[in-house]
């Protein structure tokens, strides 16, 4: 049995290629049925997102060549692409390399933004679609569950997703760093841009108690306040509102400074020096950078946020190296588990083989035994099977214990002339 993975991702293929190869939600089930024929490809799973299209499948060890060709064919045919035109973009992994790849994908080590959390959900969705289509079998079930386990370990044991890498999430992270928890904090939104709204939404999800919105045009402020379930605040009384807010997000289209050092200092004074967090996402800047020098006030403009994000991405890449070690050890563990999975059919085949030998010998000698009652027939059968089972029991037990050792299983198979695990006989007995 071999695990094969063929696909493209953002590193190997430009978006024009990826979008051609992508599967729509509706096309996936049909695709899975088309892919898995039960002969060459036995199981199948397709992960199709904007950054990757990957086909994961299992095939026989001696059918590897046919299997990979079939997957490549499938990818071209299902998108009406001529022959090998994209083959340069495909990567192909087999067995432990395929296992490693799917572990890395699920752990978000292969993502464009390393550590982003969406990819795990995408793999999860791909898996449930494979289950619905009935193309996830013994091996893929194990593999995907193991991949979820690896992703969880990576997330909890490394800092791969610890720091924010987007501006809107940065506001939440820095807010938590200053105020411990955002619950009970109030936010003032001055003006509105897409980024400011997104930041405000993230902050609300993180539990801020109160959102105030102000704008030069009162109507716009009211509209936004309604959107956010917040309160509209008058622009003329901006100085008052500054004192009430813990987090101030500023993004107006004004040319000059909307918040001056005098206003900020007065607000701090009225806040009895409780810390204030200013985020200025407007270009040109709307908050006078001089206020950053005031004590207990923290000001971040768009460049500050961008540079923190850059350093966070570097930090994530550093953590990713630790994550790779986890993946390494988990790949080894999975290989072991997989070999243990292989042992089941072998044991059954072995037991069957020994019983067959015994019954065969009985048949050869049967005529000499003369007429026997049904009871006697049964007794002889029980005698044979019992003897065979008693003798083979320690051998099978030993095999089960050394399941992690693939070579010894293979050796036993050869000794008793059993077919390889890829041959139909052994597997049919098991299933």
């Amino acid at each position, binding site marked *: 049995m071999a695990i094969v993975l063929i696909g493209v991702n953002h590193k190997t293929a430009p978006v024009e290629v990826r979008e051609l190869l992508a599967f729509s939600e509706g096309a996936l089930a049909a695709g899975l049925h088309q892919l898995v024929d039960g002969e060459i490809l036995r199981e199948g799973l397709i992960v199709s997102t904007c950054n990757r299209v990957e086909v994961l499948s299992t095939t026989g060890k001696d059918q590897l060549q046919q299997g990979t060709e079939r997957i490549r064919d499938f990818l071209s045919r299902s998108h009406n692409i001529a022959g090998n035109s994209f083959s340069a973009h495909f990567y192909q992994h087999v067995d432990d390399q395929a296992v490693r790849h799917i572990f890395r994908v699920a752990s978000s080590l292969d993502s464009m933004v390393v550590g982003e959390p969406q990819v795990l959900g995408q793999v999860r969705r791909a898996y449930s679609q494979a289950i619905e289509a009935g193309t996830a079998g013994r091996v893929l079930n194990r593999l995907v569950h193991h991949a979820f386990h690896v992703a969880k370990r990576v997330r*909890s*044991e*490394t*800092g791969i997703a*610890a*720091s924010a890498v987007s501006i809107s999430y940065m506001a939440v992270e*820095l807010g*938590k*760093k*200053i*105020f*411990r928890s955002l619950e009970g904090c109030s936010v003032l939104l001055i003006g509105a841009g897409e980024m400011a709204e997104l930041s405000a939404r993230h902050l609300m999800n993180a539990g801020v108690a109160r959102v105030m919105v102000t704008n030069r045009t009162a109507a716009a402020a009211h509209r936004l306040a309604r959107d956010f379930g917040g309160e509209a605040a008058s622009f003329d009384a901006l100085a008052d509102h500054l004192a009430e807010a813990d987090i101030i997000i500023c993004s107006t289209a004004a040319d000059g400074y909307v918040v001056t050092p005098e206003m900020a200092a007065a607000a701090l004074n009225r806040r*009895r*020096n*409780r*810390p204030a967090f200013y985020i200025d996402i407007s270009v040109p800047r709307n908050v006078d950078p001089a206020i*950053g020098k005031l*004590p*207990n006030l*923290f000001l*971040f403009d768009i460049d*500050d946020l961008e*540079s*923190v994000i850059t*350093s966070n991405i570097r*930090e994530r890449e550093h953590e990713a190296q630790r994550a790779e070690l986890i993946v390494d050890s988990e790949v080894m563990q999975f290989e072991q588990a997989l070999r243990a999975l292989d042992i089941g059919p072998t044991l059954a085949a072995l037991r069957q083989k020994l019983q067959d030998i015994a019954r065969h010998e009985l048949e050869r000698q049967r005529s000499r035994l003369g007429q026997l009652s049904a009871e006697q027939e049964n007794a002889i059968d029980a005698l044979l099977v019992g003897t065979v089972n008693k003798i083979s029991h320690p051998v099978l037990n030993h095999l089960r214990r050394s399941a992690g050792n693939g070579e010894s299983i293979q050796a036993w198979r050869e000794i008793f002339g059993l077919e390889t695990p890829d041959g139909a006989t052994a597997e049919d007995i098991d299933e």
Partner: protein
Amino acid sequence: MKPLLLAVLAAYFVAAIHSILAFVNKRRALQRVCDLSLIVGFTLHTTALIADWVIDRRYPLLSLRETLSFLAWTVVAAYAVVLYRYGAYALGVIALPLVSLLTFVSIFLRTGPTIAVEQLSGSSGRWLFPLHTTLLTFAYAAFFVVFVSSVMYLLQERELKLKTFSAFFHRLPSLTTVNDISTTAATMGLTLLTLGIATGMLWSASRDGRLWHNDPKEVFALLTWLLYLGLLVYRSTARWRGRRAAWLGVLGFLLVIFTFLGPRLMDSYHVFG
């Protein structure tokens, strides 16, 4: 008592190492090892202190050796309180190595009691003196917590202002948290210090009728008291929140260390505690 104290030292040492490892690697499993060995160490330490008291019939706070051991015990207790109240594990990275060091020194330092027991046998001295030293030891532990949380505040405040974040940044508790820890610990420390000074005065009065001797230690203790009082007053009027209060917390602790050890260099009858 020595084997027991060595076990205490070993447990504290393991806790300190794992606290640092947990801080660096952000691993909860390591933190659990730290917590467990700290619990073991603290239990054994408590047993040792009580045993000292019961068996030797001597309150264990007379020699430098005993004082350091008790100080280590109070720092662990203070750390436990901070953990329970604020979950600020980062404190352990500085507190637990210090605890290990104090325990180590207290085990391997060889000095007998420097205050003769007879000196304490005055009528009220018997209970006033131990109370005096105990209160002050707890006060020192509280001021140590103020110091560490102030340092954590300053580190983070600086990084937030400069907008460059080091590896420390993500591992330290939020500004508000360390600010709260610092304020609470300073309040407790000042209360204990006030009571400690007061009991010391009463003891002194009962011994020779004088409340104040102009002893270097007394003078420094008074300065310390004024400094922390100033810190809390300014904090409550909200004029000195944040960085400046944190600097006072650092400065105050330097004064505390000097009050604790400095007078030995000058001619003082106050030696420890």
